[in-house]
Protein backbone atom coordinates (compact mmCIF):
# COMPACT_ATOMS: atom_id res chain seq x y z
CA UNK A 1 0.00 0.00 0.00
CA UNK A 2 1.18 3.52 -0.72
CA UNK A 3 3.24 4.90 2.13
CA UNK A 4 3.46 8.37 3.59
CA UNK A 5 6.48 10.62 3.14
CA UNK A 6 8.85 10.09 6.15
CA UNK A 7 8.61 13.80 6.99
CA UNK A 8 4.85 13.61 6.92
CA UNK A 9 5.03 10.59 9.22
CA UNK A 10 7.13 12.68 11.60
CA UNK A 11 4.57 15.48 11.41
CA UNK A 12 1.84 12.99 12.33
CA UNK A 13 3.96 11.61 15.20
CA UNK A 14 4.43 15.14 16.55
CA UNK A 15 0.73 15.94 16.06
CA UNK A 16 -0.19 12.86 18.08
CA UNK A 17 1.82 14.26 20.99
CA UNK A 18 -0.65 17.11 21.22
CA UNK A 19 -3.08 16.21 24.00
CA UNK A 20 -6.33 14.75 22.72
CA UNK A 21 -8.93 17.42 23.34
CA UNK A 22 -11.82 14.95 23.50
CA UNK A 23 -13.66 15.26 26.77
CA UNK A 24 -14.11 12.18 28.93
CA UNK A 25 -17.42 13.33 30.34
CA UNK A 26 -20.20 15.42 28.85
CA UNK A 27 -20.53 19.03 30.02
CA UNK A 28 -22.94 19.67 32.85
CA UNK A 29 -26.57 19.28 31.73
CA UNK A 30 -25.74 17.82 28.31
CA UNK A 31 -27.01 14.30 29.04
CA UNK A 32 -30.20 15.63 30.69
CA UNK A 33 -30.91 17.94 27.74
CA UNK A 34 -30.32 15.24 25.11
CA UNK A 35 -32.34 12.60 26.99
CA UNK A 36 -35.29 14.99 27.46
CA UNK A 37 -35.21 16.05 23.80
CA UNK A 38 -34.95 12.45 22.60
CA UNK A 39 -37.93 11.47 24.75
CA UNK A 40 -39.97 14.43 23.47
CA UNK A 41 -39.14 13.51 19.88
CA UNK A 42 -40.05 9.87 20.48
CA UNK A 43 -43.40 10.89 21.98
CA UNK A 44 -44.28 13.12 19.04
CA UNK A 45 -42.87 10.71 16.48
CA UNK A 46 -45.22 8.57 14.44
CA UNK A 47 -45.55 5.03 15.86
CA UNK A 48 -44.12 2.19 13.74
CA UNK A 49 -47.60 1.13 12.59
CA UNK A 50 -48.52 4.73 11.65
CA UNK A 51 -47.13 4.41 8.15
CA UNK A 52 -49.17 1.28 7.44
CA UNK A 53 -52.27 2.84 9.00
CA UNK A 54 -51.91 5.90 6.74
CA UNK A 55 -51.64 3.77 3.60
CA UNK A 56 -54.54 1.59 4.71
CA UNK A 57 -56.73 4.64 5.26
CA UNK A 58 -55.75 6.02 1.83
CA UNK A 59 -56.62 2.74 0.09
CA UNK A 60 -59.92 2.47 1.96
CA UNK A 61 -60.86 6.04 0.96
CA UNK A 62 -60.00 5.26 -2.65
CA UNK A 63 -62.13 2.13 -2.51
CA UNK A 64 -65.13 4.01 -1.00
CA UNK A 65 -64.89 6.87 -3.52
CA UNK A 66 -64.41 4.47 -6.43
CA UNK A 67 -67.34 2.32 -5.31
CA UNK A 68 -69.56 5.38 -4.90
CA UNK A 69 -68.69 6.65 -8.36
CA UNK A 70 -69.38 3.24 -9.91
CA UNK A 71 -72.77 3.06 -8.18
CA UNK A 72 -73.70 6.59 -9.21
CA UNK A 73 -72.74 6.09 -12.85
CA UNK A 74 -74.65 2.77 -12.84
CA UNK A 75 -77.82 4.52 -11.73
CA UNK A 76 -77.50 7.22 -14.37
CA UNK A 77 -76.90 4.81 -17.27
CA UNK A 78 -79.95 4.63 -19.65
CA UNK A 79 -81.70 1.27 -19.90
CA UNK A 80 -81.37 0.58 -23.58
CA UNK A 81 -84.14 -1.42 -25.22
CA UNK A 82 -85.86 -1.34 -28.59
CA UNK A 83 -88.73 0.89 -27.44
CA UNK A 84 -87.05 3.76 -25.70
CA UNK A 85 -84.28 4.71 -28.08
CA UNK A 86 -86.03 8.05 -28.56
CA UNK A 87 -89.34 9.27 -27.16
CA UNK A 88 -90.59 9.89 -30.73
CA UNK A 89 -89.84 6.35 -31.88
CA UNK A 90 -91.43 4.97 -28.72
CA UNK A 91 -94.62 7.03 -29.31
CA UNK A 92 -94.83 5.95 -32.95
CA UNK A 93 -94.27 2.30 -32.08
CA UNK A 94 -97.06 2.40 -29.51
CA UNK A 95 -99.55 4.25 -31.79
CA UNK A 96 -98.89 2.32 -34.99
CA UNK A 97 -98.61 -1.16 -33.61
CA UNK A 98 -100.43 -1.35 -30.33
Amino acid at each position, binding site marked *: *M*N*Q*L*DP*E*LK*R*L*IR*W*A*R*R*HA*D*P*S*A*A*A*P*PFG*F*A*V*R*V*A*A*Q*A*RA*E*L*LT*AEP*PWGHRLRWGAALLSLFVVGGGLALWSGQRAPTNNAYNVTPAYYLAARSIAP
Partner: protein
Amino acid sequence: MDIDLADCLARIRQQDEAAARALVEHLYPAVSKIVRANLPRRAAVEDLMQDIFLKIFSHLDQFRGSVPFEHWVSRIAVNHCINALRAQRVRPEWRMADLSEEQADVIEAIATDDTRDPHPGEALGARELLEKLLAQLTPRERMLIQLLELEDRTIEEVRQRTGWSAVGVRVSVFRARKKLNRLYQEMKEQGKA
Protein backbone atom coordinates in the same frame (compact mmCIF):
# COMPACT_ATOMS: atom_id res chain seq x y z
CA MET B 1 -18.65 4.55 32.98
CA ASP B 2 -19.76 0.89 32.82
CA ILE B 3 -23.38 0.09 32.16
CA ASP B 4 -25.41 -3.02 31.43
CA LEU B 5 -26.01 -2.16 27.78
CA ALA B 6 -28.81 -4.66 27.10
CA ASP B 7 -30.74 -3.55 30.18
CA CYS B 8 -30.09 0.11 29.39
CA LEU B 9 -31.38 -0.24 25.80
CA ALA B 10 -34.47 -2.11 27.00
CA ARG B 11 -35.22 0.67 29.50
CA ILE B 12 -34.71 3.36 26.87
CA ARG B 13 -37.23 1.59 24.62
CA GLN B 14 -39.68 1.92 27.52
CA GLN B 15 -38.88 5.67 27.51
CA ASP B 16 -36.82 5.64 30.69
CA GLU B 17 -35.08 9.04 30.71
CA ALA B 18 -32.53 8.03 33.37
CA ALA B 19 -31.36 5.15 31.15
CA ALA B 20 -31.05 7.55 28.20
CA ARG B 21 -28.89 9.87 30.32
CA ALA B 22 -26.70 6.93 31.38
CA LEU B 23 -26.25 5.90 27.73
CA VAL B 24 -25.27 9.44 26.70
CA GLU B 25 -22.65 9.55 29.48
CA HIS B 26 -21.38 6.09 28.49
CA LEU B 27 -21.02 6.90 24.77
CA TYR B 28 -19.88 10.52 25.13
CA PRO B 29 -16.07 9.96 25.09
CA ALA B 30 -16.15 7.78 21.96
CA VAL B 31 -18.53 10.05 20.05
CA SER B 32 -16.65 13.14 21.20
CA LYS B 33 -13.40 11.73 19.82
CA ILE B 34 -14.93 11.15 16.38
CA VAL B 35 -16.59 14.57 16.30
CA ARG B 36 -13.51 16.52 17.42
CA ALA B 37 -11.34 14.73 14.86
CA ASN B 38 -13.76 15.51 12.04
CA LEU B 39 -15.26 18.82 13.01
CA PRO B 40 -16.36 21.06 10.12
CA ARG B 41 -15.22 24.67 10.31
CA ARG B 42 -17.56 26.99 12.21
CA ALA B 43 -19.46 24.02 13.64
CA ALA B 44 -20.00 23.76 17.38
CA VAL B 45 -18.94 20.46 18.94
CA GLU B 46 -21.92 20.31 21.29
CA ASP B 47 -24.46 20.97 18.51
CA LEU B 48 -23.00 18.20 16.38
CA MET B 49 -22.83 15.86 19.39
CA GLN B 50 -26.46 16.57 20.24
CA ASP B 51 -27.58 15.85 16.66
CA ILE B 52 -25.68 12.55 16.69
CA PHE B 53 -27.20 11.44 20.00
CA LEU B 54 -30.71 12.34 18.83
CA LYS B 55 -30.11 10.31 15.67
CA ILE B 56 -28.92 7.37 17.79
CA PHE B 57 -32.08 7.48 19.91
CA SER B 58 -34.40 7.88 16.94
CA HIS B 59 -32.81 4.90 15.14
CA LEU B 60 -32.50 2.69 18.22
CA ASP B 61 -35.27 0.40 16.95
CA GLN B 62 -33.13 -0.38 13.91
CA PHE B 63 -30.27 -1.76 16.02
CA ARG B 64 -30.45 -5.54 15.52
CA GLY B 65 -27.29 -6.52 17.40
CA SER B 66 -25.53 -7.87 14.28
CA VAL B 67 -22.54 -5.63 15.14
CA PRO B 68 -21.39 -4.44 18.58
CA PHE B 69 -23.44 -1.45 19.78
CA GLU B 70 -20.33 0.79 19.96
CA HIS B 71 -19.58 0.07 16.29
CA TRP B 72 -23.17 0.85 15.32
CA VAL B 73 -22.93 4.17 17.20
CA SER B 74 -19.54 4.86 15.64
CA ARG B 75 -21.00 4.38 12.13
CA ILE B 76 -23.77 6.87 12.86
CA ALA B 77 -21.25 9.40 14.20
CA VAL B 78 -18.85 8.89 11.27
CA ASN B 79 -21.58 9.27 8.65
CA HIS B 80 -23.04 12.31 10.40
CA CYS B 81 -19.61 14.01 10.53
CA ILE B 82 -18.91 13.18 6.88
CA ASN B 83 -22.27 14.65 5.85
CA ALA B 84 -21.53 17.77 7.90
CA LEU B 85 -18.10 18.09 6.28
CA ARG B 86 -19.61 17.59 2.81
CA ALA B 87 -22.23 20.23 3.55
CA GLN B 88 -19.57 22.88 4.09
CA ARG B 89 -18.56 22.27 0.43
CA VAL B 90 -15.75 24.81 0.10
CA ARG B 91 -12.43 23.67 1.50
CA PRO B 92 -10.03 26.35 2.71
CA GLU B 93 -7.17 27.25 0.36
CA TRP B 94 -3.80 26.48 1.88
CA ARG B 95 -1.26 29.30 1.75
CA MET B 96 2.21 29.50 3.27
CA ALA B 97 1.45 33.04 4.38
CA ASP B 98 -1.30 31.68 6.61
CA LEU B 99 1.20 29.74 8.70
CA SER B 100 2.20 30.97 12.11
CA GLU B 101 5.86 31.26 13.09
CA GLU B 102 5.47 28.14 15.26
CA GLN B 103 4.06 26.15 12.33
CA ALA B 104 6.82 27.31 9.96
CA ASP B 105 9.38 26.23 12.60
CA VAL B 106 7.72 22.82 12.77
CA ILE B 107 8.09 22.37 9.00
CA GLU B 108 11.77 23.20 9.27
CA ALA B 109 12.28 20.93 12.27
CA ILE B 110 10.66 17.86 10.75
CA ALA B 111 12.54 18.38 7.47
CA THR B 112 15.79 17.64 9.29
CA ASP B 113 16.13 14.04 10.46
CA ASP B 114 15.08 14.81 13.95
CA THR B 115 14.13 11.97 16.27
CA ARG B 116 13.64 14.15 19.34
CA ASP B 117 10.25 14.58 20.94
CA PRO B 118 8.47 17.87 20.32
CA HIS B 119 7.80 20.32 23.12
CA PRO B 120 4.10 21.16 23.71
CA GLY B 121 4.22 24.23 21.44
CA GLU B 122 5.68 22.21 18.58
CA ALA B 123 3.15 19.43 19.11
CA LEU B 124 0.36 22.00 18.87
CA GLY B 125 1.99 23.53 15.77
CA ALA B 126 2.25 20.06 14.17
CA ARG B 127 -1.40 19.34 14.97
CA GLU B 128 -2.51 22.64 13.41
CA LEU B 129 -0.34 22.03 10.37
CA LEU B 130 -1.73 18.54 9.92
CA GLU B 131 -5.23 19.96 10.31
CA LYS B 132 -4.54 22.35 7.40
CA LEU B 133 -3.40 19.43 5.24
CA LEU B 134 -6.35 17.21 6.23
CA ALA B 135 -8.76 20.05 5.39
CA GLN B 136 -7.70 19.65 1.73
CA LEU B 137 -8.83 16.01 1.60
CA THR B 138 -12.35 14.75 1.02
CA PRO B 139 -14.30 13.98 4.22
CA ARG B 140 -13.89 10.23 3.63
CA GLU B 141 -10.13 10.49 3.02
CA ARG B 142 -9.75 12.71 6.06
CA MET B 143 -11.63 10.22 8.21
CA LEU B 144 -9.41 7.37 6.98
CA ILE B 145 -6.15 9.22 7.65
CA GLN B 146 -7.46 10.12 11.09
CA LEU B 147 -8.32 6.52 11.95
CA LEU B 148 -5.36 4.75 10.33
CA GLU B 149 -2.50 7.19 10.85
CA LEU B 150 -3.46 9.18 13.92
CA GLU B 151 -5.36 6.56 15.87
CA ASP B 152 -3.32 3.60 14.57
CA ARG B 153 -6.38 1.49 13.77
CA THR B 154 -6.24 -1.49 11.45
CA ILE B 155 -8.18 -1.76 8.17
CA GLU B 156 -10.49 -4.29 9.88
CA GLU B 157 -11.20 -1.91 12.76
CA VAL B 158 -11.90 0.90 10.30
CA ARG B 159 -14.24 -1.36 8.35
CA GLN B 160 -16.17 -2.24 11.50
CA ARG B 161 -16.41 1.33 12.73
CA THR B 162 -17.40 2.89 9.42
CA GLY B 163 -19.34 0.11 7.72
CA TRP B 164 -17.27 0.63 4.54
CA SER B 165 -15.89 -2.35 2.61
CA ALA B 166 -12.25 -3.37 3.17
CA VAL B 167 -11.51 -2.93 -0.55
CA GLY B 168 -13.10 0.54 -0.52
CA VAL B 169 -11.04 1.50 2.53
CA ARG B 170 -7.80 0.30 0.88
CA VAL B 171 -8.51 2.19 -2.35
CA SER B 172 -9.49 5.40 -0.54
CA VAL B 173 -6.53 5.31 1.83
CA PHE B 174 -4.17 4.77 -1.11
CA ARG B 175 -5.55 7.91 -2.75
CA ALA B 176 -5.54 9.82 0.53
CA ARG B 177 -1.88 9.05 1.24
CA LYS B 178 -0.88 9.96 -2.31
CA LYS B 179 -2.78 13.24 -2.07
CA LEU B 180 -1.35 14.01 1.36
CA ASN B 181 2.21 13.39 0.10
CA ARG B 182 1.58 15.74 -2.83
CA LEU B 183 0.09 18.41 -0.58
CA TYR B 184 3.02 18.17 1.79
CA GLN B 185 5.51 18.56 -1.08
CA GLU B 186 3.56 21.58 -2.36
CA MET B 187 3.64 23.04 1.13
CA LYS B 188 7.40 22.57 1.32
CA GLU B 189 7.90 24.08 -2.16
CA GLN B 190 5.88 27.12 -1.19
CA GLY B 191 7.91 27.36 1.99
CA LYS B 192 11.16 27.47 0.00
CA ALA B 193 9.86 30.07 -2.47
